[in-house]
Structures are given as structure tokens and as C-alpha cells.
């Protein structure tokens, strides 16, 4: 499925991430879903609409035009600045599990022909946590957008700052927010998309600083964790607390967009904000509608 990516070592990812069984059980509606059907449907439960989490690579694939992605800083990774017990091992495990070097993939690509810098956090890599490398890559992506006069699109999925890097991880909030601030000052668009879950330090920095903020349905979005809050306030929180829909109602995000509409919505925003468009528009970049998006996913699943 991943032949359009320039890093072949990622190609083993999909199989590990999706165990081999023919059927998957939806965690929300408990229905058994034929796995191929689930993948064809962009990993959205066809029964109840539950949006299963995606890996960064899956996200890139359903978002970008085929063969359009040029990754940057592919090898960039965090070190162990604090000599934090067990951190190197965890980092190594995450690398092996995901095939990536860090919890974010960044690069340049096109969406329906519109050129953009893009970053996608990978929740499967140490919970998408932001350490020095994630902060660095997000800042560089923002700077690259500014330098090349392109938009920035960030898909977030993160548990927050990476505590194994101590205050250095906290400083990534400042680094990324400052970089995004420069992009704003320079007048280029920044679209932030929050996926399930986007919490902690990532929300308290670049994820909440988009010119436009989108979110996937049902995505958990918040700063503090539900359990900690329940301990503080000593009562149960409503079920929809910190969901994308809750945040929409509270005025914190612009739109909740289903996965099948996400690509076309982002493309429309890029177009609106004047993103340059490559000519000719890539083959795979037909006007984005649910069907093309699904068939793209479907065909790639078949490629496996």
C-alpha cells in the first residue's frame, strides 16, 4: 500500500498495526465488521460511524495525492537528554513498532493538487508524545511553510508532552507555538486537525493555534485527563465531555468533519487561502468526495 512513500522500511507497518483476523470488533457498537470493509470505509465503522484511530502513514495516504509526498527530517529523533530510566528502550520499541523514527511525520505534498507542508502525529509512537524531536519537526515544518510560502496542515493525535524529556519537552510547546506564530505573522495559512486523542501539551500549543481548527467526530480533545478532573471535582463527567462535538459547542474548534469529508474540506480551505496548485493536478486528486477517498483506501488495502 505504501509504495508512494519514499521510505520502504515503513511498508511493514500496516500489517502489524492491523492484526490478521478477518473480522474486527467495533469498540463503540460492538458489531463485528469485515476488516476489508472497515478499511475501505477509511476505518470508520459502517454501522455506527466510530472513527478508528489511524497511523500517521494511513492518515497521509488518505489525505495526500498519490506519490506527492516528500518527507523531511525522516531520520530525526529524540535522544535521551535526561538519562531517563527506560526511555531509550521505549524509544526503540516505538521505532520498531511503527517503523518510524519519531511520533510525527512531516513533509511536503499536495491535497487535490494544492501544495502544502503537512505534519501528522502518530499516536502509536509513544502516545504521540512531543519531545525535542517532535517539537523540532513541527517547528521546521512551520518554518518550511513560511520559507516556501506554503500552507501548513497539522494532524494531531497525542497524549501530550513526553515526560521522559522533562522540561525540555515542555519547551517544545514554546518552540512550536513560536514557529506557528511566525507563520501567522508572515500571512500563510495554518490548518489544524485534531484526531482522537489530542490532549495535554499538544493542545496547549500548536494544535489550538490553527487559523482554522477541524476535528474528527468523537475525537477526545482536552488539556487535563478525565480521571484527574473527576478526582478534582468529585463527580462524574458527562459522556460527551472533551469530545470534538463538545468542543465545537464550547466554541473552541471550527468544525467537526467526518473522515470521508476531511480531504475535501482541507482542500477547500487550502484553495480558499490561496495555496498554490500544481499543474497538472495529480491523477489521484479527483475532486475529493467520500467515494474517491474510500476507493483510494480500498485499492491500497488491496495492494497489501
Amino acid at each position, binding site marked *: 500500500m505504501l509504495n508512494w512513500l519514499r521510505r520502504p522500511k515503513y511498508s511493514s507497518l500496516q500489517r502489524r498495526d492491523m492484526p490478521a483476523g478477518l473480522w474486527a470488533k467495533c469498540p463503540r457498537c460492538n458489531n463485528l465488521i469485515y476488516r476489508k470493509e472497515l478499511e475501505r470505509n477509511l476505518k470508520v465503522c459502517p454501522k455506527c460511524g466510530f472513527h478508528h484511530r489511524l497511523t500517521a502513514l494511513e492518515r497521509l495516504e488518505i489525505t495526500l495525492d498519490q506519490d506527492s509526498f516528500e518527507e523531511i527530517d525522516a*531520520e*530525526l*529523533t*529524540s*535522544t535521551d*537528554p*535526561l538519562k*531517563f*530510566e*527506560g526511555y531509550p528502550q521505549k524509544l526503540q520499541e516505538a521505532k520498531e513498532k511503527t517503523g518510524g523514527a519519531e511520533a510525527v511525520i512531516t513533509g511536503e505534498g499536495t491535497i487535490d493538487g494544492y501544495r502544502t507542508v503537512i505534519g501528522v502525529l502518530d499516536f502509536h509512537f509513544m502516545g504521540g508524545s512531543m*519531545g*525535542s*524531536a517532535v517539537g*523540532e519537526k513541527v*517547528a521546521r515544518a512551520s518554518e518550511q511553510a513560511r520559507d516556501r510560502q506554503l500552507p501548513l496542515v497539522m494532524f494531531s493525535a497525542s497524549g501530550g*508532552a513526553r*515526560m521522559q*524529556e*522533562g*522540561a*525540555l*519537552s*515542555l*519547551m*517544545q*510547546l*514554546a*518552540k512550536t*507555538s*513560536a*514557529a*506557528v*506564530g*511566525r507563520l*501567522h*505573522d508572515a500571512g500563510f495559512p495554518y490548518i489544524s486537525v485534531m484526531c482522537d486523542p489530542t490532549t*495535554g*501539551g499538544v*493542545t*496547549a*500549543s*500548536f*494544535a*489550538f*493555534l490553527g487559523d482554522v481548527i477541524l476535528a474528527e467526530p468523537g475525537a477526545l480533545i*482536552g*488539556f*487535563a*485527563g478525565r480521571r*484527574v*478532573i473527576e*478526582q*478534582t*471535582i468529585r463527580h462524574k*463527567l458527562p459522556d460527551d*465531555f*472533551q469530545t470534538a462535538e463538545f468542543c465545537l459547542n*464550547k*466554541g*473552541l474548534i471550527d468544525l467537526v468533519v467526518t473522515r470521508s469529508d476531511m480531504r475535501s474540506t482541507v482542500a477547500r480551505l487550502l484553495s480558499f487561502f490561496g495555496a498554490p496548485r500544481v499543474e497538472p493536478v495529480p491523477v489521484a486528486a479527483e475532486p475529493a468526495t467520500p467515494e474517491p477517498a474510500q476507493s483510494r483506501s480500498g485499492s491500497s488495502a488491496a495492494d497489501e
Partner: protein
Amino acid sequence: MAATLPGPSTDLDRQLQDLEGEIERLRRLAREQAIDLGGEIATLETRAEDVRKKIYTNPSPWHIVQLARHSQRPRLVDFVASLFTDVVELHGDRLFRDDPAMLAALARFEGRPVVVVGHNKGKDTKENIARNFGMPYPEGYRKALRVMRLAEKFHYPVIAFVDTPGAFPGDEAEERGQAEAIARNIEEMSRLRTSVIVVITGEGGSGGALAIAVGDLTLMLQYAIYTVISPEGCAAILWHDATKAAEAAAALRLTAKDLQALKIVDEVLPEPFGGAHRDPEAAITSVRSALQRHLPGMGQMPVQAMLERRYAKYRSLGQIVA
């Protein structure tokens, strides 16, 4: 969050605790029985002081956490009262509420106009409840930003005092967008067109601290802490055992010295022996002398150069390999 502290964790701590318990016992005995145990008590006091000295001479990170959280540690109001004149406190975010956990004021430092913002921990339980233990709601961050914008308009330096357990894990704080508020402050401070001095005086708790701590110069009192997560929280998540907070405190490198080594902190300000609470005025003097040294130079640089330097500073933090 202001966590209940687990007991001391080293042999010296235990010795000290035992000695203090014994002294207390003898005192009570002497009082109740009207007998003179002055000699015995004095001996024990001397021994306790010896142990204290040993601890204070080379306090562990966990000791430092406790010093940073000490209930007698000087509070923002102490710093403000002693360091500044002509103080006019400003209230409110002009949007929703005045948050007493965040203080914002116009003031003068040795005649020079400055804008002060800071976490407003209380001195006792009543004050702390009113001020949410120094944990702001979103409106607190927004108040600080509003007043920092005033500083920007008039080209006055901002002095931000950091002392908070962290952002508040409450439902209303979430509903009103504390993540947005913190992110906004960080972004705006990174490009605020006036100089910003950050002084970490007590607890520098994660995003709640950083929301007012982006600036041109970061000063930190010797026994203050600055951390991405509380040691208790870290221990609970990593080791499922909050009592391992002392280990987490060491692992997180949250002391001023550590943070200076990581280039997060520019200068460590000495505290009186044993901690600021043993001589608050000395700790305040330490801050005063740093401000005297640095404030005159702030704002000499052209704004654009200052912003470039500020950007470069945060841009450089972190360790990576490619």
C-alpha cells in the same frame, strides 16, 4: 496539582523527623509536668540542626520540590510588596471573570514602570481556596495576556512571576478552553513586542507555568522547580506508584541547576541557606539584585532583534539527532 506530600525518603530525613518528634514530645512533657527539660531539648535541637545542615547543604531534588512548595515560602504578594512601588492591580480578562489565581499589576521597579503578572498562591488555606491554590482558570491566562498587551503598547518590560502547581484539572477550566488560553499566551508572548523577564519563584508547573513564562530572560530561584509534570504524576504514570515521587523528582531534572544546564534557565538566583522560607526577605533581595542587574539592559535592543533572539532561544531548546 497541590498533592499531599508523601513522607521523607532518605535516612537524613528520617533522622530529622525522629529528632523533631522527640523534641516535640519533650516540650509537651515539660509543659504538662512543669519540669525543666531545657538541657535535653537544647541537645536535641543542636543535633536536629546538624542534620538540617547536612540536608540543606546538598538537598536532593525531592527536598527541593518540598522547599519549592513550602507553605512559608514567600508568595507573589511578598515579592510585589517588597520589590515594587506605585502598584496598581488590574483585574479581569474583559471577557468572563476576574481570576484571583493570577495577579496582574502596573508598578514601578526603582522608579521604572513595569508590568507584573504572576501566579497568586495564597498564604493560608482560606486564601488558597479563594485563589484555587495558584492554579488559574483560562480567564487568568487571558487576564495576564490582556495586561501584557498594555505593556507592549507602552513599551514597558513585563516581569512574570511563576509559582503554580500547574493548570487546573477542572471541568470548567476545560470547557472555557484552558488549552487554547495557554497556547495563545505562549504564541503571543513569543512575539510580544516588549521585553519579558520570567522569574520562577516556586513551583513551575507545566503548561500552567509556561503560559506566562515565555520571555527574553528566565531567572529561577535556587530551590524553585520547573517541570513538565509533577513528580507524583510522573511516578503514577510511569511506575503506577505515586510514592516513587522522589525518584521521579530526580529523573525529571526539575531543579534550577539542572534547568540551567539544559539552557532553559538563564540564571539561578541564590536562596538563603535552608530555603527562602527561612529568610523571605533574603530571597526577595536575591530577585531584586537580579532585576537591578538585568532590567536596565532590557529593551535597549531594537525590538526586531530582541524578537529574533527570543525566537532563537526557544528554537534551540531540545536535544535531537538526525
